[in-house]
Structure formats: C-alpha cells, structure tokens
C-alpha cells in the first residue's frame, strides 16, 4: 500500500509506525477523530480544505517524523523536554503539531492543546479582575471555550483523574478533594465567572499528577511567543496590560516550565498572529524575545522548512487526485514548474495558489 504517492493508511495500528520511508506520503485522519481532537482548533484554510474534500489528509514530513521519533524514545522519569517548532510563514508548523497530537492521542496520552495562544492576548471583550488574585485579570470567554474543547478531547480522563485538594469557588459551591476532574471542568463551563480559575486548577492538577505516572501528558501550544510578547488589551482606564497580568497566560507559563515529568511539551512559534513583530521574523530569538527565550531555555529547536521536491510532487498529486486543480496545464511538467517557482515550495503559498486554479 505504500507504493503509491498518496497512500491511505487506514488501520489504526499501522498509524503508529510512521517511518522515514513514509516521508512525503499523505495519511488520512478519520473524521470522528477530527471532531474529538480538534474542535475549532485547526487553521481556517485547512479546515476549509477538510470540508471540501470531506476527508482530512496530512502529509508525513521530516520535522514531524523527527518529533515522533523523539517522543517514542523519551524517558518519562526525566523532566519534560521542550520541543519548539519554528520556521518561516506557511511552512507547516501548525499542521506538524496536529500530526503529533493525533499520534499521541492514538497512544492514549492526555492532550492539553492550546490552539492559538495569540487569541488570549488580543481582542478580548470581557476582562474581569480575578477572583483568586486581585492583581490579575480574568478572561471568562476564552477560558470557557478552552474548557469545552478540553472536555471534548479528553472525555475519558475526566472521570479517572481525581483532584488533590479542595477548591472553593464561591459561597455556595466548592469541589471536594477526591472528586473527579470532570466536575471542575463542569464548574468552569457552567459558571463562566470562575472559568479562568477552573483552567488554573486543571493545569495545576495535571502537572502534579502526571509525575505519578497514571497517564502521559502532552502540552501542545501553538503560537507560544504570545506568552512573552505584548498584548493589545487595555483596562478600563486605558492602561496597557502586560501578559503576566492575565491569569490564563500566567498559568500557562507555569505549565510550560519543565519542572515536572511524565510527559512532553511541544511548542510552535507563529508570526502570523503575533503582535508587534516584523513580518520576516521566524527565529526563536526574534519571536520570543529575551524573556521568553530565557524562560524556555533549554529547548530543542526543530526547523520546519519548505517542501522538498518529492513532497512538492506528492502534494500536487494529492490535489490532482481530488480534482482540485482544474486548469488543463496543471498536470503537465511545465505547469508544475510554474507552480514550484511561484510558490517556492512553500506549502501555504502553494495551497493559496492552487485554490485559484
């Protein structure tokens, strides 16, 4: 089945074994998994493509393969290793992250996926002073959305994990020690005012309990440079908010620190949603700033680059098989060369170009 360019690896067991010989081939994710793992958290163009083709196909590429290799060989007794996917705009960092998440989900890990950290630092409608800590600010809307997604992704773990402490939400409601984590999540979803605190509780519990070994935790954050950049949020008195003052950001920063073990942290840098960063910046140093770089140090950087010629061919074949390219010159050699030149083998650009054909 591996001989054709676009092979469909359907069975679940074989999906775990992606080796180097599969590089450049596409593999299918069943739609059921898509809804569980990625509720509202795919890049918009990719989700449009999924809807059009009515199937989700990711290409197996070298950075993802490298990551999977590392993941398979991690030692869970050591502190969590941080991997940072970086690269120019449109090279496929987010989709590589999705590939890794899917793999881990098949291996029964607990997925903590933040689809885009930039959404938490810009254009937030409601900012409330935090109930837990007076100096910080809450974001009930974003927090409740994230809790809903978290619930959809990790249904089965919510009843397994038990909280270690008692949490009092307000005068009437509290969560007892030993109750399942699902209750905390429900609390956050129902009482939107406490959503941010619920998120904080969830993160703290997971961090503490992953070291015990009951499950393996994958922390996947897209656009992690948002946590250390600037925000565009203002208080009522028009003073700028620093990222530390947002409770969500603060908790997430603690999560991304490697002082726990029993899992991994995979991060992606993104310039597209970032604030106040030049368009051509893509290196970790530029996008994270000094503060972020020091906070994340040490980490393993993985460069995601443009398509290799083989991958480019494979992508074009995939589009042709789905009858996406209607231009009569699209399947000729010259047409392919033109597309190669115009997009310079950049996956994002290629996708946008082919959308016009």
């Amino acid at each position, binding site marked *: 089945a591996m001989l054709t360019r676009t092979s469909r690896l359907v069975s679940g067991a074989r999906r775990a074994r992606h080796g180097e010989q599969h590089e450049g081939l596409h593999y299918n994710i069943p739609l059921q998994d898509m809804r569980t793992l990625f509720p509202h958290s795919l890049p918009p163009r990719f989700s449009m493509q999924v809807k059009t083709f009515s199937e989700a196909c990711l290409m197996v590429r070298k950075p993802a393969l490298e990551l999977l290799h590392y993941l398979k060989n991690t030692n869970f007794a050591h502190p969590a290793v941080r991997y940072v996917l970086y690269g*120019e705009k449109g090279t496929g960092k987010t989709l590589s992250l999705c590939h890794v998440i899917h793999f881990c989900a098949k291996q029964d890990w607990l997925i903590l996926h933040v689809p885009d950290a930039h959404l938490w630092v810009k254009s937030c409608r409601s900012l409330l002073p935090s109930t837990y800590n007076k100096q910080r600010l809450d974001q009930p809307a974003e927090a409740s959305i994230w809790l809903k997604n978290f619930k959809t992704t990790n249904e089965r773990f919510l009843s397994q994990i038990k909280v270690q402490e008692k949490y009092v939400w307000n005068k009437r409601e509290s969560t007892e020690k030993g109750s399942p984590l699902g209750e905390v999540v429900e609390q956050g979803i129902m009482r939107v005012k406490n959503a941010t605190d619920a998120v904080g509780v969830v993160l703290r519990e997971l961090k503490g309990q992953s070291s015990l070994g009951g499950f393996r935790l994958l922390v996947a954050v897209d656009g992690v440079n948002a946590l250390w950049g600037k925000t565009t949020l203002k208080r009522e008195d028009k003073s700028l908010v620093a990222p530390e003052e947002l409770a969500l950001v603060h908790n997430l920063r603690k999560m991304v620190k490697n002082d726990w073990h029993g899992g991994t942290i995979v991060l992606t840098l993104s310039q597209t949603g970032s604030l106040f960063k030049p*368009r*051509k910046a893509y290196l970790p140093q530029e996008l994270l700033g000094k503060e972020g770089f020091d906070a994340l140090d040490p980490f393993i950087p993985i460069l995601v680059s443009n398509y290799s010629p083989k991958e480019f061919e494979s992508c074009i074949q995939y589009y042709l098989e789905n009858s996406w390219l209607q231009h009569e010159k699209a399947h000729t050699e*010259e047409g392919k*060369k*033109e597309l*190669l*030149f*115009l*997009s*310079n083998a*950049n996956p994002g*650009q290629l996708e*946008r*170009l082919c959308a016009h054909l």
Partner: protein
Amino acid sequence: MAAPCVFWGAAVSHRLFLGGRISLALRQGVWKAAAAELQVGTGILRLRHTTGVTAKKNVAALRRETYTVDFIKKQIEEFNIGKRHLANMMGEDPETFTQEDIDRAIAYLFPSGLFEKQARPIMKHPEQIFPKQRAIQWGEDGRPFHFLFYTGKQSYYSLMHEAYGKLLDVEKRQNQLQAKGLFSEKTKTKDLIGSRWLIKEELEEMLVEKLSDQDYAQFIRLLERLLTVECSAEEEEFVQRFRRSVTVQSRKQLIEPLQYDGQGMAFSTSEGKRKSAKAEAVVYEHGSGRIKVNGIDYLLYFPVTQDREQLMFPFHFLDRLGKHDVTCTVSGGGRSSQAGAIRLAMAKALCSFVTEEEVEWMRQAGLLTADPRVRERKKPGQEGARRKFTWKKR
C-alpha cells in the same frame, strides 16, 4: 510645435531666420527677421499642432510663403560660407566638414535644455529646411508648360502615364517573344524582402503635390503589376526608385559578456529600471531556480503573487524555470516597480546565455524594453494629471 530655429554665422552680425511659422518667444530686439517677404501676416500666428512627420512637409500651408529660386540659391551660398566659418571656429578642416560635424558643433556652441528636440538650434542645408516648392508653371502668355496641367495633379498623372507606358512596353515585348517562341518563364522575387513601398507622405513630398488615398493606392497597384511581369533593367530601376529599405532588426540588443567567478561558474550581470526603481541582477548559469533579492528570499520579499509572476516571466518564456540561480539588489520605487526593474535586469542578463534568435523573440515579447511610463505631472487648474475639478453648472 515650434518651428526649427536656424542659425548661420556671417562674420560679425548674427541673423536669425525664422523659417516656417513664427514662434512666440523669440521676438526680441537682438533677432531681426531676415526679409519682409517672410513675415507671415501681422502679429503672431497661432501655433498649429501638427505631428512631427508632416511638420515640414505640409505643402498646402505654404501657399502664402513663396521662396524665389534666387532666394534659395542665396541661402545655400550663405550656408556653405557659414559651414566653413564654423569649421574654422571648431579648428577642423573646412573641406571635410560633414553634416554630423555641424550638428555636433552646434550642440556644443549652443547647448539647449529644451525637451523637444526639434525646438533646439539646428543648422542644416536649406534644401532640408525649406519645403520644396514648385516653380511657376505657366509662361508669360499664361499657357502652362506641362500638358497635364489642367488635371490639377500634373506630376501624379504624368508619373502614372509613364508607369503605364512602361507596362505596355513590357507586355508588347513579351507578346513579341511569345510570337517568336522564345518566351521563358522567369519570376524573380528577390527585391521584395527588406524593402517597402513609399508611404503616401513620402510620395507627396517627392511630387510636391497633394494626393488622395485612392490615387496612392492606384499607383502602388500599378507598380506591383509592373513587378509581376518580367521587366528589363531600366524598368527595375524605375520601380526601385519607389522602394525604401527596411531594417530587419530595429536595434541590435547589447549582449553582456559572460564572466566567470571563483568556482568556474559562468554568470552575467545587468541592470534594469522601472519608474524610480533600479535593480541589478546577477544570473548564474547552473542553479536550481533560487532567487535572492537584497539577501532575502524572493518569496519573503514579494509576498504578492503578481510580483512573483513578473519575476517568472523571463524564465518561463525561455523555458528555463529551474535552471538558473539569481542574486539581485534593488532600491527605490514601490513593490510593483521593483518587480518590473528586476524582471528587466534578469531578461537582459539572460541574453548572454541564449541564442540570437531567442534574444529577438524576447525583444519582440517586450522583455528587453525599459517601460517608459512615469508618473504624469499634475497640472494647475485640474485636480490630478487628467482629472478635472467637478463641473458645477452654477
């Protein structure tokens, strides 16, 4: 368009002659009009807008200005004397002073910043300046000299008469040969390539007479008919008088020499301009199609697809899409003009790797021509270059 201003020096005093129509600006005391017969009416004629081709050949307009034969002869003498003076002034030999030398000398002595080339000072032979005129065509008794005078277009009809006469001669000769049986089929088509028929304006100038389009077409048809039949040498010569040569390639494209860098890879450099952007491109012979602009990859430098399509055009035209590596520097202009400048520079650099024929194809495709369009100036009384202010009825 102002008439050409003509100078020729005569000893001490300068006399400016205002040929053709008088222009506005030069009515100052220093310049005296040469002869009373040249003043056209009183005051200043309104400038008529005519295209450059017909400015000097508008025979009908000069009906009022007649130059006598003596006058023209005097002008020619003065021109020759002036030419010798000029040669002495420039320190050159008066005997071998050609028209190009005169032009260079005048441009040196009277530098002019005027944009219109025909408004600058020139000094040419009076034949080229004064339009050709017809001498009086009737004698003292009022009888015209030419037998076709009363047709109105005497030279045209006499020419047609002559051509048709030649055609009849040729046919008569052919009939005689056929009768004798010595008729030999011989067709020659050699002269038609590389030459063209006279255009109507040129014919009018030759005959010093106005023609209509139908007359011109008739004449050309007659000449072509003369060509189809086999004719002797003198008829050939007659027809050739009415043909002008046409250069096959209007301009030879400069082909940059190849240079070789340290590793032995051949490369060639050239420049290109568009609006206010200047670019310099270095195209390497063997590569994989990577392009670097100012050290940045072209995908990042030109995020817009349209600019990248412009860069793709020269390579796509020559079918060499992934075969060359390019490094270029560009400055000035906006994103679209920078793309155009780089495209021109790359096309010029590619000329050195490509055959002559392909260079000609590129030239015809417009890849090697610098785009002359620049931003048009805003005029006073208008909102923009062309847009007028909103017209309000009251």
